């Protein structure tokens, strides 16, 4: 089966069942059940996939939902991205909302208003969100900047910088499905720098933590804490050095 979209002007639907290929283009709705390869840039209002699909170009869609695997070679942008399974993007991802159960890996930058990750988020450049909820692990090769970042850790998370207004990092409760899946004893997070207004941490290893109000909970090992208003420290936490500052 081979269907091409209309590159400009009115656009129809693309429906593929079984194995299919398309030359890409502009569509209204794209529905894939089975395995599909789209060979060029694709633009559509709705992209729905049950199975495996690959877009060998840029994907621009009003909404994307995928149960299975979706690979985009270029950048992806759109209103909402919902994936159960795996989402791989070769370029940048920019979206209103992102909801992932499974794995999302982005080679470029991630920007979203809201993001909820149950599973894994991997990004090779900076990420920014207004609201971020993570149940699982992140691996960000850069700065993660979020107005509100809420982590429940499973597995080993790594970040260069974690910054924003309100940052909460807790260890995941052992009861969850993901806790069992990752097999690790407890989740943990390693970062160079964590900076925010209100920072609450557990199971975190960081060189520097700065904030107005800082809570260093159990399982933390921090090189330097600088705080403006208050510092609460769990007796089981290790803080090598702390200072109250003027800003």
């Amino acid at each position, binding site marked *: 089966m081979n269907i091409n979209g209309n590159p400009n002007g009115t656009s129809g639907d693309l429906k593929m069942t079984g194995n299919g290929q398309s030359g890409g283009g502009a569509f209204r709705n794209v529905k894939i059940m089975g395995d599909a390869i789209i060979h060029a840039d694709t633009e559509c209002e709705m992209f729905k996939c049950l199975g495996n699909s690959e877009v060998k170009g840029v994907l621009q869609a009003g909404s994307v939902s995928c149960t299975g695997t979706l690979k985009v070679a270029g950048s992806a942008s759109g209103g909402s991205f919902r994936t159960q399974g795996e989402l791989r993007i070769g370029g940048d991802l920019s979206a209103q909302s992102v909801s992932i159960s499974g794995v999302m890996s982005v080679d470029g930058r991630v920007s979203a208003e809201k993001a909820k990750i149950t599973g894994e988020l991997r990004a090779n450049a900076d990420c*920014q969100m207004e609201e971020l909820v993570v149940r699982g692990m992140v691996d960000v090769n850069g700065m993660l900047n979020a*107005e509100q970042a809420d982590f429940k850790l499973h597995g080993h998370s790594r970040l260069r910088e974690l910054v*924003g207004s309100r940052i909460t990092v807790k260890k995941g409760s052992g009861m969850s499905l993901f806790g069992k899946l990752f097999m690790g004893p407890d989740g943990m997070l390693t970062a160079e720098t964590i900076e*925010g*207004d209100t920072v609450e941490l557990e199971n975190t290893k960081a060189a*520097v933590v700065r904030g107005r109000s800082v809570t260093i909970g159990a399982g933390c090992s921090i090189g330097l804490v600088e705080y403006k208003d208050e510092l609460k420290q769990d007796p089981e936490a290790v803080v090598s050095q702390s200072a109250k500052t003027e800003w």
Partner: protein
Amino acid sequence: MNEEDLISKKELLELTGISYGQLYRWKRKNLIPEEWFVRKSAFTGQETFFPKDKILQRIERIKNMKDGLSLDELADVFSPSSNIQSMSSAQLIERNIVTSISLALFEEVAGRQETLSFDDILTVYVLQKLLQGGDMTRDEGKMLIAVMREHYGAFASKPCELALVRKMGVPLLFLAESAEQIYFDKDAKWIFRLPLAASIEELKLKLNETEA
């Protein structure tokens, strides 16, 4: 105007009284350009620094304006490109954005125009500012219009500055990405250097104000 004059993030917060949350929110909204976050090694590892004059001025402006405008509107004010694409010459006069005198001079060079593009509005706005400030003669003003119309587009919204040099009464007007590292012989005299980014901000505020 030494580009190397940097301020550390801690000093910046101490000096301006803003919080990390605000700083990073403004970064996300592109109110503070990414290039201004300069990472350097320090004893605690990597530290972030900023170009001191630029960041202090920008934060002051954000603090002054943030109550009246949303963050997205503010982002537009600081962006070198504009939402407002064009405006009719009648409206520009009526709304007091430019005077009829400077517009007349513009039309002398560019011909009569019903509507002006944002770049043209900027040209008239800068022209008027410099004429009123007494930095420039009318003939130099005509040179400015020609230079802006011919070459400003080439910068494609990148920051640039306009400068005027005179030697023995002969003016030389030019646009450059930066006039920082240009040296003339001693008879040449710098009359002004005008970074257009600041004028663009002023102009956008004026356009937004009168619209509301």
